[in-house]
C-alpha cells in the first residue's frame, strides 16, 4: 500500500517536472496543467488573506501571469511550489497595504466556495475567518501558511524573508489574538441576543 502511494507521488512529481519542462519551451497545454495543479493553493492563500473572492481570483491570475514570464527561472516542481507560495504571499501583503477593504462586508458578499466536506461547526469557522481577517498583515500570512499550507516555521521564514524565531513568536501571538478576538465576538453575539 505504502509502495503504491510512493509510486503515485513519484509519478505525480515526474508528471509535473515534465509539464514544467514543456511549459518552459512554450507549450500552453503544459502551462495550463501547471495552473490546474496549483490554482487551489494560490487562490486559497489569496482568498484567506484578502477575504474577497474577486480580489483573490484577480491576484491568483496575476501570480500565474508572472509565473508564465518567469518559467525559465523555475528549476523543479518543488521550486515551483515554493516560488508560487512566496510570490502569492508577497502580492497579498502588498495588496493588503494598497487597498483598505471592508473585510466583514466582503465576507458576507462573497459566496462561499464549494467545499468537499461540510465543516464541523460552521459558526466557529466563520468567526475564526473573521478574526483572522483583522490580524495584522504578516501575522495573517504566517497563520495561513502554517494552517492552510501546513508549512513549518523554517519554510514560512524562507517564504516571507523573516527570521525563524520571529515566525515562531508571530505564530504564538497570532493564536493568542485569534483566541481573544473569538471571545470578543462571542460576547458581542450574547449582547445581541440578550
Amino acid at each position, binding site marked *: 500500500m505504502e509502495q503504491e502511494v510512493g509510486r503515485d507521488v513519484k509519478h505525480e512529481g515526474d508528471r509535473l517536472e515534465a509539464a514544467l519542462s514543456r*511549459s*518552459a*519551451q*512554450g507549450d*500552453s497545454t503544459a*502551462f*495550463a496543467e501547471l*495552473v*490546474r495543479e496549483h*490554482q*487551489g*493553493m494560490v*487562490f*486559497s492563500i489569496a*482568498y*484567506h488573506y484578502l477575504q474577497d473572492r474577486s480580489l*483573490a*481570483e484577480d491576484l*491568483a*491570475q496575476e501570480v*500565474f*501571469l508572472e509565473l*508564465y*514570464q*518567469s*518559467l*525559465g*527561472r523555475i528549476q523543479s516542481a518543488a521550486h515551483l511550489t515554493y516560488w508560487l507560495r512566496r510570490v502569492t504571499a508577497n502580492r497579498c501583503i502588498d495588496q493588503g497595504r494598497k487597498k483598505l477593504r471592508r473585510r466583514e462586508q466582503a465576507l458576507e458578499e462573497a459566496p462561499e*466556495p*464549494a*467545499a468537499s466536506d461540510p*465543516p*464541523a*461547526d460552521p459558526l*466557529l*469557522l466563520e*468567526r*475564526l*475567518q473573521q478574526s*483572522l481577517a483583522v490580524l495584522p498583515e504578516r501575522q495573517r500570512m504566517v*497563520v*495561513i501558511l502554517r*494552517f*492552510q499550507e*501546513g508549512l513549518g516555521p523554517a519554510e514560512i521564514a524562507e517564504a516571507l524573508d523573516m527570521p525563524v524565531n520571529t515566525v515562531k513568536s508571530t505564530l504564538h501571538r497570532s493564536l493568542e489574538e*485569534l*483566541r481573544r478576538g*473569538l*471571545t470578543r*465576538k*462571542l460576547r458581542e453575539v450574547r449582547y445581541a441576543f440578550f
Partner: protein
Amino acid sequence: MHFSEDDLRAALKRKDPGEGFTQRVMARVEQAKAEGKIKPVNGKANRSLFAWWKLRPAWTFAVVALLLLGFAWGGYQYSEYRHQQIAKRERQQLEELKKQQEEAERARDQAILALQIARSKLNHVLEQAQMPADLDKIIRRQRL
C-alpha cells in the same frame, strides 16, 4: 469560545477557485501576449539571461583569480622597472667614477712630468754653479 488547531485548519482549508479558472488564466496570458505586455516563453533565452546568477561562485572565483593575476603581473613589472632603474643609476655612477679616475691619472702624469722638468732644470743650474769652483782649482794648480 475555544478552538483547536484542527478547527483553524478546517477554517483555512483550500478552496477551489471555481469552474473555468484555468481557462481565464490562459485567456489572460494570451491577451497579454497579444498586447505585447509579456514575451512568449523562451526557456533557453531566460536561462541564459540568468545563468550568470547560478554561476555566481564561479564568476566570483574567476574575477578574484583575474585580479590576483593582475596584481602579480603588475608587481612583477614594477619590480623589474625598479631593478632597471637601480642598475642604470649604478652604471652612471660607475662611469662617473671611471672618468674621475682617468682625470686623476692624467693630472698625476702631468705633475710627474712637471717635476721631472723641474729636476732637470735644477741639475743644470747646479752644474753651472759648481763649474767656477773647479776652474779656480785648476788655476791654482797651474800657479803652483
